């Protein structure tokens, strides 16, 4: 054998690497259990605005502390039967919360369902399920089960808000085939429609009056075609029959484009909000009605078009345009400001429309620009930086959040979220009841 020259590359391998004991499957915890448990503390402070042209009916708190125990567990009972459970127990303290009241404790049962594989790659599921659709990040027109499922969170990032939303009680069937799937879901009415929450619900109320207030059906087909990964959806609820479609495509090694669309015959956002308020008693019977710029139903389109780009440093930027035809036009919003400024009895109803849009998971305005930046291991290892911005193209007001999360260890992480609304008090983002907010978050994983 030849004389072997010393390999200079080997000098870079520390002795500790070569002497480390090889792991085994039994010594790797996550390979034998499907549970995720963490404890989260989130301290939020708000800087209130005092010069709002449309005064808010509810007082804006100045601080709140939330302590949450978050549990997600999946259990395989037999070869074909599984049970899934996902829950968050929250304790709240703050300047608008009495420790002895029901608002100091709340449980969010996100999911609890059984899944049975009735035949090969054919699944039947029953229980509270979070069924989500749509490739966009900022707004998903095809995410039909999103209305009235929001729960409290630390971030304005929609991808974070989707983490904590409530599921819907439903029966779901899915057949997977090579490259695609057919899904059918039936969500029955379980309780009468509940009002918009203006205060805290009962501590352990599963909020079925929000998530299952009417019978709804969804059918979807996803398949592969020319790398476009299309999905076609049909959804029926008490508004009407919604059609939806989405698609995405890799453009090159660093870019992905995506789009989704839905359409339905419906009234405008404010028409629907007022009808909802009257039907649920959320708006008192003697409330004067705000004049409407349009009446009756017509076909309304919703769309989200976006592109993501990843740099060689692993920073990913998403840019999206959202179109929400039933939302406010610039004129509608100007009228919102004028009416609220001139008529204080209308202020409650005007804010009700905005709260309704938020509760439904809809943008307030007809158009919106969304930018999201995610940069893992930014500058130093384990530091994740993020930016989320919503821009109103009509008045250029923006809502921007900067976030930094640092993984102190395998089990501890620390995060800061700083959010600011930019724009005058007569603009969409500038007219919300706070100008700045900050969240300090500590998470302990188990």
């Amino acid at each position, binding site marked *: *054998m030849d004389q*072997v020259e010393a*390999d200079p*590359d*080997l000098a*870079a*391998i*520390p002795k*500790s*690497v070569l002497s*480390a004991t*090889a*792991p*085994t*499957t039994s010594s*790797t*915890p*996550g*390979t*034998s259990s499907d549970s*995720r448990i*963490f404890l989260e503390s989130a301290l939020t402070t708000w800087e209130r605005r005092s010069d709002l042209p449309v005064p808010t009916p509810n007082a804006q708190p100045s601080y709140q502390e939330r302590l949450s125990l978050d549990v*997600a567990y*999946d259990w*395989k009972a037999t070869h074909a039967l599984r049970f899934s459970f996902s829950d968050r127990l929250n304790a709240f303290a703050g300047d608008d919360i009495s420790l002895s009241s029901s608002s100091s404790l709340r449980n969010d049962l996100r999911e609890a369902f059984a899944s049975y594989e009735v035949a*090969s*790659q054919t699944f039947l599921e029953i229980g509270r399920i979070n069924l*989500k659709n*749509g*490739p966009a990040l900022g707004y998903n027109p095809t995410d039909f089960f999103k209305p009235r499922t929001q729960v409290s969170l630390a971030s304005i990032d929609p991808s974070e808000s*989707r*983490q904590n939303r409530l599921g819907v009680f439903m029966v779901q069937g*899915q057949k*997977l*085939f*090579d*490259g*695609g*799937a057919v*899904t059918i879901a039936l969500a029955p009415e379980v309780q009468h429609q509940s009002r918009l929450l203006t205060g805290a619900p009962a501590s352990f109320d599963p909020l079925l009056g929000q998530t299952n207030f009417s019978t709804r059906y969804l059918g979807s087909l*996803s398949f*592969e075609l020319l*790398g476009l*990964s299309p999905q076609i959806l049909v959804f029926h609820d008490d508004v009407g029959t919604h059609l939806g479609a989405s698609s*995405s495509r*890799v453009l090159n*090694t*660093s*870019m992905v484009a995506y789009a989704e669309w839905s359409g339905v015959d419906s009234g405008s956002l404010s028409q629907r909000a007022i009808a909802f308020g009257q039907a649920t008693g959320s708006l008192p019977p003697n409330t004067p009605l705000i004049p409407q710029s349009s009446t009756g139903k017509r076909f309304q389109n919703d769309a989200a078009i976006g592109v*993501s780009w*990843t*740099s060689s440093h*692993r920073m990913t930027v998403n840019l999206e345009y959202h179109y929400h035809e039933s939302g406010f036009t610039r004129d509608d919003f100007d009228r919102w400001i004028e009416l609220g400024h001139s008529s204080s009895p209308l202020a409650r109803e005007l804010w009700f429309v905005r709260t309704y849009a938020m509760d439904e998971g809809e943008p307030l305005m007809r158009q919106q620009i969304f930018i999201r930046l995610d940069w893992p*291991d930014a500058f130093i*290892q384990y530091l994740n930086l993020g930016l989320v911005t919503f821009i109103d193209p009509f008045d250029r007001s923006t809502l921007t959040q900067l976030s930094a999360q640092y*993984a102190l260890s*395998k*089990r501890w*992480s620390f995060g800061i979220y700083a959010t600011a609304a930019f724009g005058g008090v007569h603009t969409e983002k500038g007219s919300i009841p706070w100008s700045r907010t900050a969240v300090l978050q500590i998470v302990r*994983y188990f």
Partner: protein
Amino acid sequence: MNMKTKIIFGVVTGALFFGGIATAQSGPTAQEIIARSDEVRNPKEPFQVTIQLTEYIAGTARNEMALTVYSKLAATSEKFRNLVRYAEPPRDRGKSVLMDGTMMWFYDPASKTSVRISPEQRLVGQASQGDVVTVNLARDYTARLVGSPDGETIQDADKVARRCWHLELAPKSNEAVYAKAEYWVERDSFHPIKGKFYSDSGRVLKIAYYHRYEKQLGAERPSETIIIDAVNAKLVTTMNFHGYRGLDIPDSWYQREYLPRLKID
């Protein structure tokens, strides 16, 4: 056919024939070597394996991650389809990624949504998806022998002398992760021993050593890969492969709709 034509035909045929024998006698071609070496790293049957990644900074283990990979050779090509599920650390548990050529989706169990990702969106810290998932180098790269066809003797990670073919790899498909690679494969056993991977600008990005060979799914396979970061010399990542298991994986698993159903068995 006249005499002149017959002579030319005979010379050409003879040259091809004996040339062929000469080639066969000199050993496998570079492409055959890389293909045989792929078979050492990758079982041909569908399988699952757990990969434990440990990042060392200046010799101290700083970060650990565990992934379970479900891999299957596509029926129509020599391409592997991969599903990767995060097991550790706890904050990432249950996240999963589908990698089927350029078709890549990331699923987060917390948001229960699948997001389409680009190949640039690397999977984990120092190890790129090209290191973690099952890849046929012979499919993505053109190999050529460098130096003597008899090979050269190099040291493996444990400083044991190995007689290796030295190959240079150039990308031939858009799924190739690196712009260039050097690869050392042990003669006779076809065990990959060392790899050096380069960027577009010709800079060394990482150096990999394959060692601790163990019998898994019918063949001797490296149970550990050591990856040296050529840019940050203090950073070394080890990838330990364990829990190999042959598995009947349906093709319908390799789609975004299956990602929420990818659970621990």
